[in-house]
């Protein structure tokens, strides 16, 4: 009897405050999802590189060394130099800052827009859904590039217009995916139950629907990060992204490196590999996150 009361007291006292939740989460990440953990580590390395580029880079990102033009990778220049004699390793570090910031914030913005639009239209339905979705149709029928050229012409090129435009575009298009997930969740009887016990719309949207559409939300976010970094590359190529000499990976990949592809392939290889690595590791991390956040996937009972 004493044991029973002891355990029930312990359960009573475990009053939902778990300070070790984050530690526990990472422990599970490394134990159950090694690939996802590797993805997280790679993402962190790039974030670190971007944040501390000033300290880590051996040269300035726009430090031109005419004698050292198009040098292959060596101990002096780890990733080689470009056609102007700039150190590619240093530019990759600085570029990480730009690309990762743009990638994460535009994908984040896109995901927030998708979630808000998708969940409200999907759950509320009716005329509101009809109106918003026709607006989405109209928006999606505009070519992305045309709108971007107009916006850049008005506000000037730079990081924030790129984040804003890409976030809006991908976000509005992605709202369809979230909406369709919401349509199936809202018919579940636990949503009905929440309504019948008196739960308000806000509670049902954010406490019941959102957690249950998290898997597509996470997938949407992780795929968007890669898409944004690549989109920024093509915008930079057109001169609509972040203007040179600021080193974005996309710009390095598509700019003058094309002209020297046979003479100096390392000019395109280094940013290309980094881009692939970041996109890949974010996807791995996202998949792991999706599984770990799903209580049904937990191994312990």
């Amino acid at each position: 009897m004493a044991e029973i009361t002891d355990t029930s007291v312990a359960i009573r006292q475990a009053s939902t405050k778990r300070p070790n939740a984050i530690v526990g989460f990472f422990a599970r990440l490394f134990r159950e999802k090694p690939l996802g953990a590797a993805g997280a580590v790679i993402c962190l390395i790039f974030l670190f590189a971007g944040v501390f580029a000033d300290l880590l880079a051996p040269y300035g990102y726009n430090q031109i060394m005419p004698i050292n033009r198009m040098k292959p990778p060596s101990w002096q220049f780890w990733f080689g130099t470009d056609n102007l004699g700039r150190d590619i390793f240093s530019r990759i570090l600085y570029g990480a800052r730009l690309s990762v910031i743009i990638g994460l914030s535009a994908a984040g913005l896109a995901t927030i827009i998708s979630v808000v639009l998708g969940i409200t239209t999907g759950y509320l339905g009716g005329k509101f859904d009809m109106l918003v979705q026709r607006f989405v149709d109209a928006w999606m029928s505009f070519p992305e590039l045309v709108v971007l050229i107009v916006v850049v012409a008005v506000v000037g090129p730079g990081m924030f217009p790129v984040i804003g435009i890409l976030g809006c575009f991908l976000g509005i298009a992605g709202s369809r995916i979230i909406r369709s997930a919401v349509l199936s969740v809202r018919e579940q009887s636990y949503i009905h139950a929440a309504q019948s016990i008196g739960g308000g719309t806000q509670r049902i949207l954010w406490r019941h629907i959102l957690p249950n559409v998290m898997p597509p939300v996470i997938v949407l976010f992780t795929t968007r990060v890669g898409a944004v970094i690549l989109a920024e590359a093509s915008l930079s190529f057109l001169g609509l992204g972040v203007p040179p000499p600021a080193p974005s990976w996309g710009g390095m990949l598509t700019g003058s490196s094309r002209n020297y592809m046979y003479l100096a392939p390392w000019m395109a290889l280094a940013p290309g590999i980094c881009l692939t690595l970041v996109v890949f590791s974010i996807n791995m991390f996202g998949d792991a996150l999706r599984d770990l956040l799903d209580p049904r996937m937990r191994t312990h009972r």
Partner: protein
Amino acid sequence: MSEVLTREEPRSAVKSNVILDVQDLKIHFPIYGGLFQREVAAVKAVDGVSFQLYEGETLGLVGESGCGKSTTGLAVLRMLPVTSGKIVFEGVDITNYDQKQMRPIRRRIQMVYQDPFGSLDPRMTVADIVGEPLEIHKLHGNRAERRERVMELLEMVGLRHDMIDRYPHQFSGGQRQRIGIARALAVEPRLLICDEPVSALDVSIQAQVVNLFQELQDKLGISSIFVAHDLAVVRHVSNRIAVMYLGTIVEISSRDELYANPKHPYTKALMASIPVPNPIVEAGRAHHIIKGEVPSAQRPPPGCRFHPRCPQAMPICKEKVPELRPEGKGMVACHLFS
């Protein structure tokens, strides 16, 4: 067998005051069609249902699929638009209440669902699921207090304390249904609407859950509407039973009266369809099989809705709708008794 199934004495808890009064309730679901999406027809899911529920009483609603028994239950919760009629709960007409006005009422009326797998949010722990009504109705201020109350409720429905932090997928169907019952009881409702709460469970588990219902009802004195199609289960839990056919009540009577002396031909046919556990008796028993299909609820037959399938149909049945009128100890809607 019947000694096991039926309870010897009627519930003493039944009082005479009416807690729920449903008057001529109609729920029609419009069908839109044509170029301008105009209303072209309506499915008359519930078409003129009246009944009263007394405090502490359990009313069984039975009938075959599509007869409107679940719809009636949902309408009382005001989860469906009411076409016409009146729903009076504790003396207050709630027929035209909007969702905001309904909120305090929702504390008094709770529901137990049919599907134990779909009715609990898979992303929430038991503590959150059972605690949610408390949170919504601001009954137990902080988390610790709510947790304490959830523990009490788990105990009440026969679950262990240490299950409080588990997720729904870690439970069996019967256990989940117990969680659903705990959630419904959390706010101490006066009326419980049970929409086929045991029909998705194994027979052995059904008995346990049905017993739990009875225990709780005896202990807490909650009135309830018990929707089911399993006559044995209904017999076990109900004080009174209403038999529905195609959106209307054809007979309403006390449990013992209905089972001992069914009056409406449809009720008789339903009773005859209950299998007898003794195979020798069962094999020698005459079966009253109802012929044909349930007619469409869009265009119900004129007169008595049961007349196309009724073995005792008379000419008047095709013309005049029979009214629900007192007959013996109950009420029946049939021209045979008028």
